[in-house]
């Protein structure tokens, strides 16, 4: 097991075990397509490495050639060879079938969660001072108008949230309001789901267009209450520079 082919196989198996089982212990699991991409890159790298000289190319491919031609094979190796010759066409047939078979899954949707806001909403500052009174008023308004969907705990799990797709945002998640500026929230609350651009699929959003019901002052104070209640801070211009 010292030949280049054996080393490559061991490398590939090791990579697969690492990507599939060890890496998820520290971070989110990788999608199968990404694992395959990494394995393909590993294989390609190994092949390029062993193609650098004719001698090692022979060492790399030689065992495969001998296996396929059946040179000097007995017992299990002979059976494995026949199995490979039978399985390869069947695998091609299976791939053809899965590509052509009608799917019961609807078309995939690539929805942009935080699309670019319209120009007039970029860089607006909250005109109200961050006082306890204003924050408390914002939290009260949040409880009345926002919490049925976004939840009393700002976690997107309000009593009305369960049926909606996409689900209401969880403000405690570091990927939502912590990444956004106050002006962005002002746009999203004021114009609601129907204010979203096409890439965000506005036809699916249940978020009301709150400018119809709430004055701007209330919206700015709700934003203050949301950040305070969720324990997050708005993204600021300074951080972007």
């Amino acid at each position: 097991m010292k030949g280049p082919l054996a080393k490559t196989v061991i490398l590939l198996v090791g990579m697969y075990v690492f990507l599939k089982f060890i890496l998820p212990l520290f971070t989110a699991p990788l999608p199968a397509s990404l694992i395959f991409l990494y394995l393909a890159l590993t294989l390609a790298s190994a092949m390029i490495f062993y193609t650098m000289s004719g001698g090692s190319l022979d060492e790399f491919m030689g065992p495969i050639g001998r296996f396929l031609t059946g040179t000097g094979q007995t017992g299990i190796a002979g059976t494995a060879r026949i199995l490979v010759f039978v399985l390869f066409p069947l695998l091609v047939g299976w791939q053809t079938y899965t590509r052509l078979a009608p799917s019961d899954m609807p078309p995939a949707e690539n929805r942009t969660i935080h699309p670019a806001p319209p120009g007039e909403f970029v860089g607006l500052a909250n005109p109200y001072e961050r006082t306890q009174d204003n924050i408390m008023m914002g939290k009260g308004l949040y409880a009345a108008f926002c919490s049925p969907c976004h939840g009393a705990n700002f976690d997107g799990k309000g009593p009305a949230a369960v049926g909606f797709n996409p689900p209401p945002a969880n403000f405690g998640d570091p990927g939502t309001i912590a990444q956004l500026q106050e002006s962005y929230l002002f746009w999203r609350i004021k114009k609601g789901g129907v204010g979203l651009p096409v890439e965000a699929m506005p036809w699916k959003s249940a978020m009301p267009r709150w400018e119809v019901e709430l004055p701007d002052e209330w919206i700015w104070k709700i934003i203050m209450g949301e950040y305070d209640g969720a324990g997050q801070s708005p993204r600021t211009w300074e951080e972007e520079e």
Partner: protein
Amino acid sequence: MGYKKNCYVALGLILVVTGVGASCVFASDPPPEGGAESVAVRLHLTDDAISADDPNAPVWDTIQPAEFKLAPQVHWPDRIQEVTVKSVKVRGMHNGRDMAILLEYADPTEDAADAAAIEFMVGDKMAHFAHGQEMLQVEGGAVNIWYWKKEHGKATDMSAKGFKTIRAQENQNVSATGAWQAGTWRVVFSRPLQTGDEHDVQITPGEWRNLAFAFWDGEIVDGAVREQGSQKAVSSWWYVRAEPPPDNSMYGYVVLGIALAAGFEFFLLRRIRRGNES
């Protein structure tokens, strides 16, 4: 050496194809969170007449339902925060000409004002699920709504494109029948797949369409109907597709794929053997 190189390139090709195949077969992604919930209604293809009038016809129990959760309507004012109907089971069938969709949902009381509706996007323009509400950056389309109310005893075929624009259509082509038993409503809607009316959703087997649901609990509480108008249980947009007739041509391509792969193996083996001999 050139001969050998050709063989090695072919061998490499085999490795890659087998790798791709194996990774697709064995390394499929886990379903997304909450993957047990449905995203689409399948209208099963049948050779028989469609069960359009009887929500309790035995054929319905042979079809696996899709299930969708429901939420209170919150998009525009006059909203409520609690609704009676929490989820709906949906079954569908078609025979290439007519279609039927059965809605099954829990509602503890049978009331004259109980009602159910199915909403569809019409044509190719995306429409907001709240009655085709106007969108600010996207030119939206209209929706077609099939509405059934217990006291009417029939369906109304409606159209809407925005807040307070809902109206009954001139051409009524939808039928509906409801049956309540032991706290469960079963309501069956039926219609031809194609109507030729531009205000209607047109269902073509094999094509995906968007649909959504709405329900009203008509129970009288303190002299008033519990849920009416925009106070209702709603779903988001989901998908519906009429099952297309079976297409056997794909099996021909599968056989062709197998034959080509076997031919490739034969060719490769001959090349390697000749290379070794030389």
